[in-house]
C-alpha cells in the first residue's frame, strides 16, 4: 500500500516545489478560515465547517479522539438529528463503524494533511446522508471506505460525486415507485413496459457480457427498422437463450432493437409468469400474434423446436429437433418478412439435462423434469446456470417478400423453406462447434 502511495506523494511534493516557497497546500486555507468560523459558527456553510473540524484536529494533534470534532459538526441540523436520535441498531452499527474509521484515519501519519481533510469531508457527507440512504448502501459505502482507507479513493470530489449520484438514483427510484403506484406508466400495444425492461438491463448485461461472454456475429443481417422473423435453435432447459438473443440485439445491434420472443402458450396460464413475460415484450406463440407483430415491423423471435428443443437430453445436444409444423414460415411468407436463421452455441451446456423424470413432471404439471448435475441435488442453487461461453450467429436472411402472401397456403413451399432454415441453423452450429476451443473457455 505504502509503496503504491509513495510516487503520488512524491509527485505532490514536487508540485509544491514548483509552486514555490509559499506552498499552496490546501491545509493552509482551512486554518485561515477556521478563525472566521469560530467567530460566527451559525452562519458557516456545511463544507467549510467540516474542513475546519478536520483542521482543528490537525492543529492539536494530540487528540485523536473525535469529541473535538463533534461541536463543529453539530452545527448542521442533520448532524444533530443523527446524533441525538436513539439510533436503530443498523444505524448505530454504522455510526460506530464510522467512528472507528475516523479514529483510524486520525491515527494515520500526519504527513498527509490534504488527504485527512478530504477524509473528514467524506465522513461528513456520509453522515449528512445517513438518513436518506438505504441500509445496504450505507454498509457498502462504509466497508468500501474501510478497505480503501489508504488509497486514492479518498478524494472528496470523488465521494461528492458518488453521493450525488446515489441521491439522484434514490430520488429517481422513489419517483418511479410513486408513479407506478398511481398507475402512471404506459405499456405498448402488446403489453411491453419499457420501464420494467430497463430494470432487467443490469442483470442481462451481467449475463451477456460477464457470465456467458456472448459473442454475437452477423448482426448486420438484422434490419434496423424493418420486420424480420428470427428463427433460433432452442436449448438449455430454462429458456435463457431467448433472453440472450434479445440482449444481443438490444446491446450490440446499432439500432438497439427490441426482440419479441414468442413463448409457449402454457406460460400464459401461470401466475406471475404470464404478466411478467407480457410486460417484458414476450408474446404467446400464436400465428395471429406473430402476424400482428410482423405487420407492425417488429422483430419476432421464434424457437420452432419448442419443448422438444429446450428439454432435450445432454447427449442430444446441438442436434436440432423437429421444427414444429412450419407455422412460423407460413407467417413469414404471409407478412413478407425475411427469415433470419439464428444459431446459438453454448446454450446447451448451461443446464446439462441428464435424465428427464417424466412421472414427476406429470405430477407437477411441468413439461419436463430434468436431472442435471446441479438440480435437484443443490435445490434452488441448481437453478443457477453454468457459465459456458456463448456464440450467437445471425445468418443471412432468407427473403420471402417476393413470394407473395398467397403462397403461405402452399404446403410444398412451406416445408421447403422450413427445411432450408433448419439446415442453415444446423450447419452453422456445426461450423461454430468446429472452431469452439472449449465449452467454458473463450
Amino acid at each position, binding site marked *: 500500500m505504502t509503496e503504491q502511495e509513495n510516487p503520488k506523494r512524491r509527485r505532490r511534493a514536487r508540485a509544491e516545489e514548483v509552486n514555490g516557497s509559499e506552498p499552496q497546500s490546501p491545509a493552509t486555507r482551512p486554518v485561515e478560515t477556521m478563525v472566521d468560523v469560530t467567530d460566527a459558527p451559525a452562519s458557516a456553510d456545511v463544507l467549510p465547517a467540516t474542513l475546519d473540524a478536520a483542521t482543528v484536529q490537525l492543529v492539536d494533534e494530540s487528540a485523536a479522539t473525535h469529541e473535538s470534532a463533534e461541536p463543529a459538526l453539530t452545527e448542521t441540523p442533520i448532524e444533530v438529528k443523527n446524533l441525538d436520535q436513539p439510533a436503530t441498531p443498523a444505524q448505530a452499527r454504522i455510526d460506530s463503524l464510522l467512528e472507528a474509521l475516523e479514529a483510524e484515519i486520525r491515527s494515520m501519519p500526519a504527513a498527509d494533511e490534504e488527504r485527512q481533510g478530504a477524509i473528514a469531508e467524506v465522513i461528513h457527507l456520509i453522515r449528512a446522508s445517513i438518513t436518506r440512504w438505504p441500509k445496504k448502501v450505507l454498509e457498502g459505502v462504509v466497508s468500501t471506505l474501510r478497505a480503501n482507507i489508504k488509497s486514492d479513493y479518498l478524494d472528496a470530489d470523488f465521494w461528492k460525486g458518488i453521493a450525488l449520484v446515489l441521491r439522484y438514483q434514490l430520488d429517481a427510484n422513489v419517483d418511479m415507485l410513486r408513479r407506478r403506484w*398511481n398507475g402512471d406508466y404506459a405499456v405498448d400495444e402488446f403489453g411491453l413496459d419499457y420501464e420494467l425492461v430497463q430494470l432487467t438491463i443490469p442483470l442481462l448485461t451481467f449475463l451477456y457480457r460477464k457470465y456467458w461472454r456472448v459473442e454475437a456475429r452477423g448482426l448486420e443481417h438484422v434490419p434496423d427498422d424493418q420486420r424480420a422473423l428470427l428463427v433460433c435453435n432452442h436449448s438449455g432447459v430454462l429458456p435463457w437463450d431467448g433472453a440472450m438473443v434479445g440482449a444481443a440485439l438490444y446491446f450490440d445491434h446499432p439500432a438497439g432493437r427490441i426482440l419479441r420472443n414468442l413463448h409457449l402458450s402454457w406460460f400464459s396460464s401461470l401466475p406471475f409468469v404470464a404478466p411478467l413475460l407480457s410486460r417484458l415484450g414476450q408474446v404467446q406463440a400464436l400465428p395471429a400474434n406473430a402476424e400482428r407483430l410482423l405487420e407492425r415491423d417488429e422483430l419476432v423471435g421464434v424457437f420452432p423446436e419448442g419443448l422438444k428443443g429446450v428439454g432435450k437430453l445432454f447427449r442430444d445436444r446441438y442436434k436440432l429437433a423437429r421444427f414444429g409444423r412450419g407455422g412460423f414460415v407460413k407467417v413469414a411468407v404471409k407478412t413478407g418478412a425475411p427469415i433470419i436463421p439464428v444459431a446459438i452455441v453454448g446454450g446447451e451446456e448451461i443446464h446439462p439435462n441428464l435424465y428427464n423424470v417424466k412421472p414427476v413432471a406429470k405430477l407437477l404439471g411441468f413439461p419436463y423434469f430434468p436431472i442435471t448435475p446441479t438440480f435437484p441435488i443443490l435445490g434452488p442453487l441448481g437453478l443457477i446456470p453454468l457459465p459456458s461461453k456463448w456464440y450467437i450467429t445471425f445468418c443471412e436472411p432468407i427473403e420471402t417478400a417476393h413470394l407473395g402472401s398467397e403462397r403461405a397456403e402452399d404446403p410444398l413451399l412451406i416445408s421447403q423453406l422450413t427445411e432450408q432454415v433448419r439446415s442453415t441453423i444446423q450447419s452453422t452450429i456445426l461450423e461454430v462447434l468446429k472452431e469452439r476451443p472449449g465449452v467454458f473457455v473463450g
Partner: protein
Amino acid sequence: MERRTVLITGVAGRWGRRLARQLVKFPIVRVLGLDIRQPERPVDGVEYIEADLRNPLLVELLRTEQVEAILHMVFASGLDQRGTQLSAEDAFQINVMGTMEVLAAAHAAGVRQVVLKSTTMVYGARFNNPLYLNEDAPLHGQEGMPSLRQRYEIEKYVADFRRNHDLHIAVLRFPGIIGKSGASSLMQYLGQPTPPMLLGFDPLFQAVHEADVIGSVLHAMANGANGVFNVAADGVMPLSRMIRQVGHLPLPILHPLAYNLQRVPGVKKNPLLRRAVPFDLDFLRYQWVADTSKMHTELEYTPQYTLDEAVEDFRGALRLKRYADVLPRRSLSNGIRAFLSRSGTAE
C-alpha cells in the same frame, strides 16, 4: 321533408334513454320508444309505446309506422322493474326470445336496419386467446354466467339469421363500459375501494367510453352497417394500472382460493360478492382484448375517447361523487321535468 322512423326497444333502460336523447336532436328522425314499463324520465319528442316485445302486433306496428331502423337495447341482466331477481328462465325469455322476435318481425315488416349491443366477453377469457381477438374468433361465452350465456345465444342466433335473411344487422361488441355514470359492471368493479384481482395475474384490459357506445350505435344505424364489429377505445392497459389510475388499490386474491370459493353453493348468487366481481373470474385472469381494426376500416367509426381519457373521465366522476351536495339532485328536478314534458305534449 319526410321524417324517418327509428324504433328504440328498451327505451326506459339506460342505453335506450340515452340513445333517444341523442336521436331526438335530429329533426329528420322520428323516434318511437318501446318498453314494457313506463320511462322514469321521459325524453321530449319520443313517442312512447308501453308494450311487450313478444307480441304478434309488433310486425303490425313496424309496418304501419314504416320503421326504418330498430335499435334493440333490451337486455335484462338480473333485476326486473320491481327490483326482484329475475329467474334465469325469465331473463332468457326476455333477452334471447325477445331478440328473435324482433329480428323476425323486422324482416317481415321490411325494416332496413337493426342494431344490437353485445359484449366482447362472448369471446371468453382463455389462456390461449390471441392478444387481439378479431370478429371471426370463436365464441366461448357459453361457459360464463347466465347473462353472458344469453349474449352468446343471441350472437349465435344472429349469425344464423344473417345467413338466411338479407336484413342489415349490426352487432356491436363492447368491452367494459366506462364513463361518468358509474352504472356498468366494469365501473361497479372499478368503483370499489379495493377491486379484487387474482394474485399473479394482470391481464391487459380494454374499455369503451359511454359516449362512444352511443356514438357507435348511432353511427352504425346511420350508415346501415351490416356485420359484427368490436368497438373499443384505442389502447390497452394492465388491469392493475386501470385500478390504480382510478385511484384505487387492487386486492390480490389467490386464484385457487377464489375459484374454489366460487364453487361453494350460494356464493355465486351472493349479491355482495357479485357486486365485487361482476364478471367471471377468468376475465380477471386471462386476456380478452378485442381487435378494433374492423371498426376503424369497415365501420369507419373513430372513438372520441382513448382508453386513458375514458379512465380519466371515470376518475373525475368518482372524485366528484365525494362532494354529494355539489351535484344537482335528480329527484328534485324530476317533478318539474315531468310537468314540463306533459305541457309540451299538450301543445
